[in-house]
């Protein structure tokens, strides 16, 4: 069943929408959750919650691209669950390493206090990604959207792990400069 047919099921409040969504995007969303949580049960729960969120949101939501829409919900739910699980103690794993890497992007001289706006930051990151060459942009997305391990990205893009690390490092430095230039607070 294609995206259009699935969306019609949602709009007709037909419960088979969830079954069809799960059939079509179950593996995709599970992989996103599992990259972040590294736990099968938690990942399964996030995926199930994704279907529920989609059910509650559509209609009135009309996703342009269902894969990205669902993936984004799964990703946000997984990050929230990760935050809850690591509220007191930050453990190891891909996310922690990715977070440590992202610290390099935080502009200098800013006090980490006050109420900050996520949308502004998200918009700046989005604009920044468009400034990168295609390969570097894909590596950034692979690493910080899908939270893929460097090793997987290296294999996927035909690069050595060190090469991927270097490209990511340079992109992070550029992102930091970009955020500073745009005056975006993190």
């Amino acid at each position, binding site marked *: 069943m294609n995206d259009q047919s699935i969306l019609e099921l949602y709009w007709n409040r037909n419960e088979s929408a969830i079954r069809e969504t799960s059939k079509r995007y179950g593996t995709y969303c599970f992989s996103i959750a599992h990259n972040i949580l590294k736990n099968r049960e938690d990942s399964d729960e996030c995926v199930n919650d994704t279907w529920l969120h989609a059910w509650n949101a559509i209609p009135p939501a009309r996703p342009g691209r269902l*894969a990205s829409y669902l993936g984004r919900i799964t*990703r946000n739910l997984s990050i929230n669950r990760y935050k809850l699980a690591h509220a007191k103690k930050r453990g190891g794993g891909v996310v922690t390493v990715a977070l440590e890497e992202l610290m390099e992007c935080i502009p200098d001289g800013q006090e980490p206090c006050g109420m900050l706006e996520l949308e502004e930051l998200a918009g700046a990151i989005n604009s920044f990604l468009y400034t990168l060459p295609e390969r570097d942009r894909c590596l950034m997305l692979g690493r910080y959207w899908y939270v893929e391990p460097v090793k997987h990205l290296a*294999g996927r893009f*035909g690069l050595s792990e060190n090469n991927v*690390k270097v490209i990511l490092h340079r992109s992070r430095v550029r992102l930091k400069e970009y955020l500073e230039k745009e005056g975006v607070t*993190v």
Partner: protein
Amino acid sequence: MRKYEINGKNAAGDRSLKLLEAFSAVDDKLLEQYDHIVQKRLKICRYRRKAAFVCSAALASTALLCIITAALHMQRGGNPLTPSATVLPAEESEEGESATSAHPSDEPEDIKQNAAEENISDNQAEITEEGQRVMEEERIGDLYLGMTENELIQLLGEPKEISNSGVVIDEYGYRRICWWYDLGSDNIQYRADVQLELIDCGDGFFINTIYLLPEAELTLLSGIRIGSSSGDVERAYPKIERDEAGSGYNIGGLSGLRFYMENETVKNIELGSLIPYPPEVLDKSPEPLPYDFASEHITVYVKSEDSWTAEELNGWEVCKPIEVIMGIEDLTELESVPLQPMYYLDFHNGTLAVLYGSDESGSIYTLSDSGGFQEALLSGGDTAQYLTPVKEAVRFPADTFARVQRALGRSEQ
């Protein structure tokens, strides 16, 4: 609008977590582009595995049939070495293909299909069913498409020649290189008779195209070889198409099997390409190096007794000779380097080189923070946090160490 309160001990961690969350809002267009690129690579790698599997299956089934045939002949009192009929490889089931690991971009089949159809320059669309079949099933001697670099070297050893351009990178970032072998019995030195194009789509090189030159003596499964007649070709491949110009025959058009004819005999044979060149090759330059020795300001940290001192090299005249010598040739990988570095060279462009002594052994790192590194090194602190290894054990070109010493005004040892 969502608001974030940031405070407490984990402020830096919370801020990076916020950055990670902010990535969620990336445009669908960018995600779609990413998914298409990853899918294309997965598809090619699966295709390659499938081709390799089919050939292995063909070998296995041929071997099995030979054993059975031999056993039957033995039972009937025949000669076990009597050749059996030619066996064509079996088709692989779809299950074999889908056994690859899950990936975030493992989208449903029709999405993959749409992605392939929508992408104007997707070369996979150019491969016909017939072309795909012949590329999966055909063998030339012991060679087949999808054979890995290691399998190839095991079979034929190192190539006689490698393309002068070295590895070239096509529009999609796939790495390509040509190898030549001289497998024939002719005595013409320096002349190869088999040309192989290898491609690396992300997990190692494999054969993408096999091209036989006029001196080649290899034979296809059908028995056709260089020198076979038009009649032989037409009998062996009843459905083969003659080119409009009459210069040859082909199965599958541009990606498949082609016979180039001269005086109605086969002059060249080409099998492939599994992955044709993109319509335009945009980038023929080698992959950019992840380090760079070009700089007009180098800080050299010199080991003295049990501490380090920093010396500055400034200006093109001083720095350029170091850049030239360090980059004059490919660096040789070493298994290990001495424990104690003699010099650290910070090029102030994100690259840091380490020299261990006059044996030219060294390492290369990317340096995230020159100031932090300097402070840590000079105060005897931990510098590891500033360094990301690029090449941990290499031999720099001869005279590198001496040239750095000269730049520092030290007498050569």
